[in-house]
């Protein structure tokens, strides 16, 4: 959908000189000494699939807003390309002519601003309809879509008000509605929820997830809120000093920070929301799992720390049955288990089956209602491994997956 190639932005009098020095490996400070230039963005490349939710994090001044503005060319990149997938093939925003740029902005690149940027002389409705107005959408249709979008961000009755009559959080939602109403396939969002109270923020986040799923919007989202990033992002990029220092899925960012900067960033992350069952599960070949005996077509595994547990697995990997303390145990999908009214004491005759993508949070909930190890399976219901309390606790303490290591620490 979007492919950014080696994007640089230099602020100052001698950008070419600065780029040359940068290529020679000089540091930002040396370059500022020599040329008076500030490096805003340095060699950023990434590619997004349609419908991807991409989150950018980084300290203040790390260049997040500058990068976002280079994508719709509110700031002209000093070098690099911004390929945008359109119906007419890929177009480089950085090289587009004036009328083409306008069209790309109208049809593809809606933006939510850090400082709202509402038009103070227009009503909330006319602000939201602004994108449609420059797209020459008729008045009635404009009003209809603006009101619809306002409804969606929870500002149904406010269409006739002026922005100055709204609180900061409400103005921010007007900015959000303006971008949503414009209908662009790519949403550039610069800290769009920073001024919202926690409750509204949560609602807006859910709305964003829904929008992305249902309407297939591709979203680039800047935030300072790690929990928000982990919740929303398909992938997260951590930015430092104009560069991407690490790009990855939330789980990797939290569990395998590549630099101390990233580690500091995620130090206070709540791991239960990101670490998945698949990573913490103890696989069948693990030293703590014994293979007791082979029977034709299946094998039986026993878990050493809970010696009475035996699991029968078919040759193709599917779980056939489970015995606990010699008695048969019922295998129940985790959502069924969680939907039931919780028993007064934890089940000893039922075990939860959970998909590898579910998070620790879900596993914890399952441990709350049943005592037996949780069985982790893949898309085809094949056993990936077991999770007991021990694995969960290890993961929380170490913020690491199990990955076959006995004491829960991986490199």
């Amino acid at each position, binding site marked *: 959908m979007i492919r950014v190639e080696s994007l640089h932005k230099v602020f100052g009098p001698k950008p070419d000189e600065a780029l040359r020095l940068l290529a020679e490996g000089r540091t930002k400070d040396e370059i500022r000494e020599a040329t008076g230039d500030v490096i805003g963005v340095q060699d950023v490349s990434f590619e997004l699939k349609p419908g991807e939710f991409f989150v950018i994090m980084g300290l203040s001044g790390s260049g997040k807003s500058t990068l976002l503005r280079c994508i719709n060319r509110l700031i002209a990149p000093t070098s690099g390309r911004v390929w945008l997938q359109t119906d007419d093939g890929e177009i480089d925003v950085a090289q587009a002519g004036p009328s083409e740029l306008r069209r*790309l902005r109208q049809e593809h690149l809606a933006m939510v601003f850090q400082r709202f940027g509402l038009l*103070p002389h227009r009503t909330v409705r006319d602000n939201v309809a602004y994108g449609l107005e420059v797209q020459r959408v008729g008045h009635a249709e404009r009003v209809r879509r603006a009101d619809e979008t306002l409804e969606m961000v929870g500002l149904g009755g406010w269409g006739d008000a*002026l922005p100055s009559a709204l609180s900061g959080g409400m103005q921010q939602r007007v900015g959000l509605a303006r971008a949503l109403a414009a209908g662009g396939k790519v949403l550039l969002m610069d800290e769009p929820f920073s001024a919202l109270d926690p409750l509204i923020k949560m609602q807006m986040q859910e709305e964003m997830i829904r929008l992305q799923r249902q309407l297939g919007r591709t979203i680039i989202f800047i935030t300072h809120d790690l929990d928000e990033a982990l919740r929303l992002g398909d992938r997260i990029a951590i930015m430092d000093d104009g560069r991407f220092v690490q790009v990855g899925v939330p789980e990797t960012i939290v569990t395998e920070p590549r630099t101390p900067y990233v580690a500091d960033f995620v130090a206070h992350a709540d791991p239960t929301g990101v670490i998945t069952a698949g990573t913490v599960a103890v696989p069948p070949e693990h030293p703590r799992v014994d293979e007791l005996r082979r029977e034709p077509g299946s094998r039986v595994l026993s878990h050493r720390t809970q010696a009475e547990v035996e699991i029968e697995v078919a040759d193709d990997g599917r779980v056939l049955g489970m015995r606990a303390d010699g008695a048969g145990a019922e295998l129940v999908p985790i959502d069924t288990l969680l939907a039931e009214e919780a028993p007064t004491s934890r089940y000893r005759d039922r075990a939860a089956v959970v998909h590898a993508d579910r998070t620790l949070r879900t596993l914890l909930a399952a441990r709350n209602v049943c005592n037996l190890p949780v069985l982790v399976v893949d898309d085809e219901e094949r056993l990936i491994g077991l999770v007991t309390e021990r694995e969960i606790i290890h993961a929380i303490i170490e913020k690491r997956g199990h990955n076959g290591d006995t004491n829960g620490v991986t490199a």
Partner: protein
Amino acid sequence: MNALLTDAVFDPIRIPLDDWFNDFINWLTFNYRPTFQAMKVPVEALLDGVSAVLLWLPPIAFIALVAIMAWRVAGWRIGALAAVSFTLIGMVGLWDLTMVTLSMVAASVVVCLIIGLPLGILAARSDRFQGGLRPVLDVMQTTPAFVYLVPVVMLFSIGTVAGVIATIIFALPPLIRLTDLGIRQVPEDVIEAAEAFGSSEREVLFKVRLPLALPTIMAGVNQTIMLALSMVVIAALIGAGGLGRPVVEGLNALRIGQAGIGGLAIVLLAIVLDRLTQAFGEGGAAKRG
């Protein structure tokens, strides 16, 4: 006394600037008088049109219209003020002259808008243009009006139209300056937002810059009107009609009463127009909160 200590020291290097100036105006008059005369035509048409309407309107109707308009844009106090002022003007026997003055002011302001708004917009767009324009505006604004009355008369002859043209020269600068200032003051983030949604430069100008600059532009209009009114008496010196006449005649014949009521009518007109245009500007500002 030593010649070096008196102004005789300048004698060997006297610059005949007055002659040059003379020659320049003569040259301009000789070669371009028809051009300048042609420039009078649209101004004259505008002036005649406005004054025809104002003089045709029955005073009662005019007072009612102005009072209602003032009440709508500026509240009932200003509405009442306008009604009382114009009634008073009629009662002292200056109705027709006031209408002539009003049409002169209106015509000058309209021409100022036609010239000033585009120049102000251009000045806001380009630092170079602004830099070139600024000294011209300074000269227009600081040159005493009496100084350019003579060239105006030579180029445009005497009469009301020449008066209006002198008024335009004098009243134009603040409108250009404040249009420029107002547009430059529009916050960058709002303009960026408009651009981010794919607005053309034209759309940014008409949908964002001008509406947001409106209160400042209205302050410019207000100043232009006030300056135009302050030219009423001076314009009468070169044969312009209106309220300046009784003042100038009264001055010459030492008829203090005649000059006094003329002055009073000008002041009343100024107060009403000032309050009205201010209310227009604040209306825009209030909307923005």
